[in-house]
């Protein structure tokens, strides 16, 4: 089971960075905003599933933090695109992110108790790692608008902290 979860997480990480890098044309700011926002929405959905399914205080605390932080950064992103007059634009990277996120929700819906907690924590590590990679290699360097770039940089700091926190959580569940 654990092996399957790890494999799924690795496959997902590959899908994400692969998709982000495979785009022949560099994403424009409207697409970058959409990708970053979608990445947040997916993590919020995962956290909400954890809040419903888990009974572990550490997992619940972590999930509450994910909802709170990602909602804050996404609200800020929405305010920024409104100010800039940019409409976030759907794109293949956002779509593959969303498909992978939905598949995870479906997989994890079948789990319960410790198995769910471990799967959620391990996936949070892999997911934040993958998003951090995409932010560093594609989204931040390609962003043209200075305010968008700066928000993505804050996002990278936040996601890096979340990755460390998720690693601590996953280690504690072993």
């Amino acid at each position: 089971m654990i092996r399957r979860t790890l494999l799924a997480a690795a496959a997902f990480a590959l899908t994400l960075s692969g998709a982000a890098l495979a785009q022949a044309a560099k994403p424009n700011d409207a697409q970058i905003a959409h990708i970053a926002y979608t990445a947040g929405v997916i993590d919020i959905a995962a956290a909400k599933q954890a809040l419903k399914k888990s009974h572990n205080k550490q997992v619940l605390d972590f999930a509450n933090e994910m909802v709170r932080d990602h909602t804050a950064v996404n609200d800020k992103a929405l305010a920024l695109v409104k100010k800039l007059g940019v409409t976030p634009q759907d794109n293949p990277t956002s779509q593959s992110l969303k498909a992978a996120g939905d598949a995870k929700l479906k997989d994890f819906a079948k789990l319960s108790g410790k198995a769910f907690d471990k799967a959620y924590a391990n996936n949070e590590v892999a997911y934040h790692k993958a998003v951090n990679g995409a932010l560093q290699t594609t989204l931040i360097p390609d962003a043209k608008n200075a305010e968008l770039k700066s928000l993505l940089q804050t996002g990278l700091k936040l996601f890096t902290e979340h990755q460390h926190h998720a690693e601590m959580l996953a280690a504690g569940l072993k």
Partner: protein
Amino acid sequence: MAAAAGLALLSLAACNRAPPPAPKTYQVTIANMAYGPTPSGLRTGDVIEWVNNDIFQHTATAKDGSFDVDLPPQAHARTVLKAPGVVAFYCRYHPGMTGKLVVAG
């Protein structure tokens, strides 16, 4: 006799010593997932006013357990420094955020 001399010395010392400085309040600001610089010259009795200018909720949590302040976005909160020493602190939600207060007696 010795006691009387001791008492005289004590009262002399009390007369000569300047009154302890009034406690001061210092701000430590949080922005962009980091604590701003912590003030130097802190003394017991001084107050740290934590100001969270970030869009995220943070905490200022002492590693030795002496304080644990929850800081929603835009919140202000105060911590009185009760004892001398070096107090390392961090954010419970984002443990990579750290700082240190150096408090003199």
